[in-house]
């Protein structure tokens, strides 16, 4: 299905089925058949590697923001050696603008559970953890129930569907730390520690949880797996944009009439998403800017949006990224200085403090932004800000420093006049 045809798209991730979150309803609608297939249909799935290959061919690009081919990631797991191996499902979703995985927890937890189980089987994993951000208490409870239900139905546990495959599945959760969405920080947190990202190498596939091979996948990424198994890699990769195929859960927030989460093919024109899908701009205001995929993805001016579609290729040419597809829409009244200050505040607050450039840089960025916001900034501060971003980017263990640097660099560059105007005003005020 092409992106342009989105109006006729029939959702698969969170289908239009009442009470699909209940395991009986889920099963009645074909749920867990993909799991059953990979475990029992030896003709179709000769071994676990064939599952990995299928998912790799589908090119499910990680929906947590990095966009890495999930099946390829799975193939990095070393051969099973009889010891424990882990799948850690990343449900920490905390990037401002992102609120999509919670819809899976709430409306179709079993599609994620099934996807995780297939992933676990494909990688010969013995234990699955789903790590959910601590604030999502409601969803934590929903997931605990769903997993218990799946245990009760024999979907999780010993010898699933009579096969020789057994696996455990546990819910675990955070307690307020954006950084735990970074995959190795999440592993540290899962191990009961301060959420400091780990130095790579070794990568989690070599040494993950408790030093054992571990794969980390985003919730939505795993939720796509059952339909890939059921309908084939070709079906998945034919949906939406070729370079970033499949359905995507778009989260749209900000100044639109109908904010929310939408399941649609990838590659939809940004302007369609704003004006058609999300019901257009609130109060008939003019569109000023869009952050396409969470706060760390560089902002685009309204005049940069024509013809840009929601896929990695198109967004890259526009000078930004797809990220989590959590789009934040800003109208003409938006104060870009205030907006950027708030983003710098967020990253300053959430820096774990491990690496120097991030620990010190995020605070410095915020303090200068505050100065500018309060009318005390000078134009040279803008150049200093840009300089600090180069001092931070690419110099730290994880990408939080990059995530903090990009919005500063691009918001200032793309809205330079507005920033300078704020600075100049203060210069005149002094005179």
């Amino acid at each position, binding site marked *: 299905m092409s992106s342009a045809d989105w109006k006729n798209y029939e959702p698969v991730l969170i289908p239009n089925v009442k009470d699909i979150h209940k395991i009986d309803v889920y099963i009645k609608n074909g749920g867990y058949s993909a799991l059953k297939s990979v475990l029992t249909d030896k003709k179709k799935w000769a071994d676990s590697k064939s599952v990995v290959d299928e998912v790799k061919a589908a090119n499910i690009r990680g929906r947590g923001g990095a966009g890495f081919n999930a099946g390829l990631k799975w193939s990095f797991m070393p051969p099973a050696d009889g010891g424990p191996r882990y799948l850690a499902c990343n449900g920490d979703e905390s990037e401002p603008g992102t609120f999509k995985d919670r819809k899976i927890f709430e409306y179709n937890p079993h599609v994620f559970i099934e996807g995780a189980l297939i992933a676990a089987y494909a990688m010969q994993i013995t234990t699955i953890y789903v790590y959910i951000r601590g604030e999502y208490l409601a969803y934590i409870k929903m997931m605990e129930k769903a997993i218990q239900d799946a245990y009760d139905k024999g979907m999780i546990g010993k010898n699933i569907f009579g096969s020789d495959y057994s696996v455990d599945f546990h819910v675990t959760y955070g307690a307020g*730390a954006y950084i735990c969405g970074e995959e190795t920080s999440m592993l540290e947190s899962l191990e009961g520690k*301060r959420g*400091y990202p780990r*130095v790579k190498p070794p990568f989690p596939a070599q040494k993950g949880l408790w030093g054992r091979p571990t794969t980390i996948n985003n919730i939505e990424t795993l939720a796509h797996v059952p339909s890939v198994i059921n309908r084939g890699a070709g079906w998945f990769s034919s949906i939406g944009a070729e370079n970033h195929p499949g359905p995507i859960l778009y989260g749209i927030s900000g100044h639109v009439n109908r904010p929310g989460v939408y399941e649609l093919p990838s590659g939809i024109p940004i302007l369609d998403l704003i004006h058609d899908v999300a019901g257009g701009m609130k109060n008939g205001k003019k569109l000023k800017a869009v952050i396409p995929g969470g706060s760390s993805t560089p902002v685009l001016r309204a005049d940069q949006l024509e013809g840009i579609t929601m896929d990695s290729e198109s967004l890259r040419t526009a000078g930004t990224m797809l990220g989590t597809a959590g789009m934040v829409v800003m109208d003409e009244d938006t104060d870009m200085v205030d907006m950027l200050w708030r983003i710098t505040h967020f990253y*300053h*607050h*959430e*820096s*774990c*403090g*491990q*690496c*120097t*450039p991030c*620990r*010190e*840089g*995020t*605070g*410095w960025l915020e*303090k*200068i932004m*505050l*100065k500018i916001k309060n009318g005390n900034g000078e134009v040279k501060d803008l150049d*200093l800000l840009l*300089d600090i971003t*180069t*001092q*931070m980017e*690419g*110099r*730290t*263990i994880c990408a939080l420093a990059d995530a903090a640097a990009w919005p500063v660099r691009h918001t200032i560059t793309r809205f330079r006049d507005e920033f300078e105007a704020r600075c100049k005003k203060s210069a005149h005020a002094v005179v």
Partner: protein
Amino acid sequence: MPEVFIDGKRYEYEGEQRLLQFIQDQGMEVPFFCYHPSMTAPANCRQCMVKVGQPVKDRETGEYEKDEDGERVIRWFPKLQTSCNIMIADGMVVKTQETDDLVKRAQKDNLELILINHPLDCPICDQAGECPLQIQTYKYGPEGSRFEVKKVHKPKRVQLGPRVVLDAERCINCTRCTRFTEEISKTHQLTITSRGDKNYPTAAPGREFDDPYSLNTVDLCPVGALTSADFRFKARVWEMNQTPSIDISNGKGCNIDIWTRDNLVLRITPRFNEEVNDYWMPDEGREAYKRFNENRVSRPLQKLDNEQVNSSWNNAIATISEQVDGVDKKDVTIIASPHASVEENYILAKFASLLGMNPPVFTPHVEKGKGDGFLLTDDLAPNANGCRLLGFEEKSAAGIAAAVEKAKVVLLLSDHLADRGIITTDKLKDTFVAVFATNHSETTKNADLVVPITTAAEHAASYVNVDGRIQRTFPAKETKYSNRRLDLEMSEGRLDRYGTSFDNWITEENKIDCLPLWRFMSELAAYKGMENFAYTSGREIMDEIAAANDLFSGVSYEAMDEQSGITLDKTKTTVKL
């Protein structure tokens, strides 16, 4: 052999090696803060950035691909790498700040960031002068700061434990201290609290950082965040002399540095020795610095009418000579000491043997349960094994007490037997007791003659530790009779070299009126007309011991210096009581 190219120069290497360590081992430098060779590398300070690349190999032939000039094609890592956590690989090409401007810039950028919230209070900071942050800022840092907003404020002057004080604002979050309590001392007493730029190390609330090894965190701290409660504000490091020595507070023989100023020992820090103590030492050993300064016996004391009065060296010599000559040689008991050096014990034994007296006996100083399997030992003396190797009879406490009781003259070397309950002071009443001692004690108080001798901080002498390793000290502080300028064993500090008589720290006050035991015994021998008994240094005594005693063969000061100590035949050093 695998090879690596650093700044254009080829090096061969063997085994698994961290790039940063390898660079240092070649005598080159890359600045860093968090890395420590004996602990895990968290790569959190981000200072040791270098540019790293690998040559591209042809997949089929396995040969290196070459460019038009015949040079290997290098695939550079897209980002700069922290050299502390990169393992060297065959063919790796590395560019440090010496040859790459981006690396230079990255290191400078990082230092600017480290410094923005640092208080820059070097003039009042104990670490100044030996501060990696200060040194590396001068070498690699920016010339000024562009930080014109408010610094983060954190707790200052926090007494983390009895011996360690924290200034959290100075902390650069390298986590060396927390890693130390996790990985080395394993008390797990420290953690980083809070998050982001509010981070700082702390003990659990309401708990003391009383780790028996806590002061190592002060050494480890690359800034002045952790300081020693005792040493704090006592001296600027450049005012002190640093002299290598051996910890004499227990049997491990941790290698140490003694830091003196105006002949007062102000602090003791560990000195690296892979075979003994790595980079560490127990806090107890550091507190032993006081023994070198306080409560010292200075000039001989003699008991007259039941009261000790100052005496003279001539008088001390004459008195011992008289007492020894006045009794049957069999009635002289000589007690050697596990607290004294091999050389001192040897000289005493030789003296006894030449005069036909009983050979020395000794008793070890052991407190069961004191040891921890790390650097604390049950043995509280530095040289019990030295006494054993010299062939001295090892007696129980009761055995020593009996030997004292039946003697008419006792010559006691550096062992405060009364203080440690081996003998009671009334047992000393009817016997003439001459004590060779460094410090006053109940034992010296009850002696008829006290001869002041040098401490380990004042002489060069050797000690055999619990593992049979012989290691030696250097004189760190002058006595009334020694001179830094003349004694080649002694170090000269900045003040010695460049100071003037107007400098505040040059006085005569702290020089103790004492002699090395061998000097005193040589004087005594000369007085008695003995031949071949004139020693001026521990060095010549050790040469003599090595020639005479197989167990010490091959031992010399040169050899000990070269090999950081020598492990002797262990089987001979473990005599059971």
